[in-house]
Structures are given as structure tokens and as C-alpha cells.
């Protein structure tokens, strides 16, 4: 039963991370990120107590709220600062490559780290998609979404090997800090427009 839910969580991670890459509306972006933290919660709770995994999810949602509030207050039309081609087809193609590469990598990683395949793949997939997001966009809001995705992927993998409360607390602080940084970037742009 739990194995099936692990695969469902992986599917959610896949859909949300690809969605984050394809969508251009910030509301969708934040919504998808919030759902992504749901899959993070499930994949982390296989190794950690539910309460600690839930803390990660709540931190993620808080980060989404911070970013959402900041975006609402800025009320700016999004500018695309691209460092790579921006077509949806291109993004889908690169996302496909990342999916294939992380699947191949996760087959080895799961046996090496002693994790089940959906957890290893889910983690590496989020890291890969986050890195792709960082690579194709130079817009600060997108960069912060990319960094949060990379960290979410890393946290799934790291939960399998480390269960320190201090690390969990510091990682939560880093996630929130990144969201606040994103909010600060957005606020800077508003001041500039004014």
C-alpha cells in the first residue's frame, strides 16, 4: 500500500516540477510548489517521524505563502529574463531528458543509498528539474522557485541518511530564508518601478 503511495508521490513530484518549468503564471507556480511539498512530506516520512516530515511540509507552505504575498503586493507583469530558449516544446524536451537521466541515476542511487526507487528518483528528479529551472531563467522569482525545488529534492535524499533535528531546523530556516530573499527581490523591483 505504502509503496503505491510512494509512486503516487513521485508522480506528483514529476507533474509539479514539470509544471513549474512550463507555466508562466506565478499563481500556478506557487500552487504547484505547494503541492510539491506534499509529495516531499510523503517521501520524507518514510525515513523520518511524521511530525518532522510534516514540519518540512509546513515550512514549504510557509515559503509559498511568503512568495505569494510578495508577488501579490508587487502586482507587476512578469518580465522574462531568459538565458536559454523559452519555447514550451524545448522545455518539455529538456524535462524529458532530465527524467530519463535521473531515472538511470536513481537505479544506481537506490541500491547505493539503500532507498526505494520512487524515493531516489523523486529526489533526483526534483534536483534535476530545479537545476534546469536555474539554467533556463535568470528572473529572480524563478531562480528562487528553482532553488527551493533543488533543496526539496536534496532534503528527500538527505532524510534517508541523516535524521538530526538541528539539520532539519536549519534546513527549514534556509527554505524560509530563500522565500524571504525571493520576497525581497520582488519588493526591490516594486521600489524600482515606483
Amino acid at each position, binding site marked *: 500500500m505504502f509503496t503505491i503511495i510512494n509512486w503516487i508521490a513521485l508522480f506528483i513530484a514529476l507533474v509539479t516540477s514539470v509544471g513549474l518549468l512550463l507555466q508562466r503564471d506565478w499563481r500556478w507556480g506557487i500552487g504547484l510548489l505547494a503541492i510539491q511539498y506534499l509529495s516531499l512530506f510523503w517521501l520524507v516520512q518514510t525515513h523520518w517521524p511524521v511530525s518532522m516530515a510534516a514540519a518540512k511540509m509546513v515550512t514549504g507552505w510557509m515559503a509559498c505563502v511568503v512568495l505569494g504575498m510578495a508577488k501579490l503586493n508587487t502586482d507587476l507583469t512578469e518580465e522574462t529574463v531568459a538565458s536559454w530558449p523559452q519555447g514550451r516544446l524545448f522545455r518539455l524536451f529538456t524535462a524529458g531528458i532530465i527524467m530519463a537521466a535521473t531515472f538511470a541515476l536513481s537505479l544506481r542511487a537506490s541500491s547505493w543509498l539503500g532507498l526505494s526507487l520512487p524515493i531516489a528518483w523523486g529526489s533526483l528528479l526534483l534536483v534535476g528539474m530545479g537545476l534546469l529551472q536555474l539554467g533556463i531563467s535568470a528572473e529572480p522569482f524563478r531562480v528562487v522557485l528553482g532553488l527551493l525545488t533543488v533543496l526539496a529534492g536534496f532534503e528527500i535524499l538527505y532524510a534517508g541518511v541523516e535524521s538530526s533535528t538541528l539539520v532539519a531546523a536549519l534546513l527549514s*530556516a534556509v527554505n524560509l530564508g530563500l522565500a524571504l530573499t525571493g520576497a525581497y527581490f520582488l519588493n526591490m523591483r516594486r521600489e524600482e518601478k515606483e
Partner: protein
Amino acid sequence: MSAPFLWIFLPLILAGLLMFLHNQKVIALIACIFTFVLTLAAWLLPIDTVLTIGTWSFKLTSSYEILGRHLVLASADQSLLALIYGSAIVWFAVAPAIKTARRLISLGLAITALLVAALAVEPFLYAALLIEMAVLISIPLLSAPGQRPGKGLVRFLIFQTLAMPFILFSGWLLAGVEANPGDLGLVQQAAILIGLGFSFLLAVFPFYSWIPLLTEESSPYTVGFILWMFPTVTLFFGLGFLDHYTWLRDAPTLGRVLTTVGLLMVVSSGLLAAFQRHLGRIMGYAVIMETGFSILTLSLGGTVGLKIFFMFFIPRTLSLVVWALALSILRKHSPSLILNDLKGLGRTWPYATSGLVLANLALAGMPLLAGFPPHQAIWEGLASKSISVVIWVLIGNLGLFFSAIRVMLTFAAAPEGANWESHETGAQRILLSIGFVALLLLGLFPQWVLPLWTKLPTIFTHLGQ
């Protein structure tokens, strides 16, 4: 009271309180007195020893437990604490002269405290998380209010954040290596992850593109502080790695890897600095070169390398403070920091322009200036291993030297009949003059800081012996 409370939590609390103050001079005064007291305490107060004054007894414990882990500042760390907080005084004392005290001091003090916590946390691999928190705090410091975040700032955030997972994950692998040192595959994987983590953290070639961008787009003084603080603490953190893991310290390829990386940084940054037209970018490349030199000192190995590593510390701090101060003054009063816009400024801003050129020359290893003794030591150390490496290092130094000459010629290109004036404020003149004298005196009498070079290596139990 515990040592971590004194040197980590108290500065954090004060940093928070200073944010509520508005007067730049008051903020600077409070911060300078406080950091001076911390420096003095690091120098004089014994840790884990009962101190009795009359009927009153007092003990500063070395450890502080937090969420099941420990922050530990032992007596061996005291000289390092004195050095970090002592240098912070210099940065904070100068800040009001260019009206950056309010943001720099409160956030700078918090960054310093977090980075000290990074050096104190046990297991020490968790330092990556604390460094990341310091990075996040430094974002408001580096971004000018009302301006769109530049490429350099965004890249700084990305690269420093990406370092954290590599370091944390390598920690898990390193525990496996310690348990099973014969597993060469595991050793290789751990080494690759550590290498990548430190490449991002230290902005090693080719991950240093954000440094010149950041020095171009942000306030030179705050960037100077960040580019002094982060590489310094990261290098200490790296030394902690080398000190802690015998297999890493004794790896036969370590020296070669460090030499190659250091050389790439010194040569590429030196050559690129020679062709820059923006003064901020030149400072950025000089910082990259300094990191390269620090890595080269570590490639020498043993206590000799470690002593030269610490020899660089004070000249680098002084040169960067003078350079960043001079650059900030010029930035406020000229349309841009592009060479074409700065022609003939030597006549109207003599202190700032001379300070900038002197600091540039000092970091290029010019004889009679503070940077020369450590540069001479590293040239000598590298020459005993390979002449070709020294030739390449000298090419890098020449690049930075050439950039100083170009800048000097630009400042001197005043129209005929232009009068000599000084537009700097009194405080700026005094601070820059102190900087010139210090740069010259440390070049002429390097033995004055000799006790520091001999004492600091003992922080590292294995490397320093």
C-alpha cells in the same frame, strides 16, 4: 556563561538591536566597542578555566548544546576569534565615513556571528547550513534598495546555495570513508562531492563569474566586506576538513589538485584583471587571485604552507578595506567606475585614488608594501617545488600589477593646468592615510605580526604540527 553565547549569540542579539538605531556614528561606535571587547575577551579570557577575582569566580565553558548538537569554541580557537572580530572592527570603524554603517554593521555583525557559529558547530559539516544562512542575510546588504537584483547577486545566491547540499552529503560519505578507508570508490565519490562543494563556496575557477559581476553592480564597500568574510571563513572551514580527515590530508593527489586549482585562479584572474575597464571588476579579480593564493599555500603542505596561509590574512584585510573605501568614495562622486569616466581624478581625489592604486599594488605583491612578504614566501615555497608554477604565478601577479599601472595612468591623465584639490572629507582623509601608513609599515616591518603567524597554525591539531 558559555563561549558560544559570548561570541555567537550576543553579537546576533546586538545585530538585531542595532537595526532599530538610525544614527550611523552611534551604530558604528557601539559595534566597534562591542567587537573590541569580544576581540579582547578572545585574547585574554581563558575558556574552561575558573577565573577568580576576589570573592567572585567565573567560568567560560566551551560548549553550548543546541537541538542535540554542540557549538564548541575551545581555547585553541581564541586566536582565530580575535582575528575575525579584530578585523571586523576595521570594517565597521570605516563604514560611517562612506555612510554605509547602518546596513553594513547590523547585518555584518550577524553574518560574522553566523560564520563563527559555522566554525564552532559540531559535527563541523553542518557549517554548510550556517554559511548558507549567512549568505541569505547578506543579500539585503549586497542589493541597493530600489534597484533590480543584478546577475551577480542572483548567481551569488545560486552558487552559494548549491554548495550546501554537496558539503552536507559529502559529510555522510566521509563518515563511511572513516569506517571503511579501503573503499576507493567511496573515497573518490566523497572527494568529488567535497571538491564541488568547495568549488561553489570558494568561487573556484570556473565558478567565479559572479564575483566581478557583483563588484560591478553593488556598493564596493559592502561587497569588499562580503568578499573578505566569506572566503576567509570558508578557507578556515576547508582547513578544518583537511585537519580532520587523515585520508584527505595524506592523499597523494591533493597537492597537485590544489596547485592546479590555485594556479588556474591566480593566472586567469590576473590576466582578466589586466584587461578590465571597470574598477569594481578589477577588485573582484584581485579577490579571486587572493583565494587562489590561499589555495596555493595549502598545496605546499605542512606547517610552512599553513604559516604562509596566515601571513596573507592581515595584508589582505588591510588592502581590501583601503581598496573598497577608495572605490566607494569614487563611486559616489563620479558617473561610473569605468576608466574613461575617471580620467584625471588623481588631481581632485588624491587620497582615494592613491589608496586605490596602493591597495591594488599591495595585492599584486609589490615590494615595500604589505602584500610583498607573503607573496615572496609563496613564490619561494613554490619555486622549491616547480619553477614553471612560479613563472605562471608571476604572470598572474603581473596582470594585476599591469591593471594598477593602467588605473594610475588614468587617474594621472588630468587636463593641463588642472589644480590639485582634495574633495575627500576629513574622516576619509584620515582613514585612507592610516591605511597607506599601515600598508607601508607592514611591508617594511612584517615581523611585527610574526607572533600571529606562529600562533594561528596551532588551531589545527594535525596540520599545524
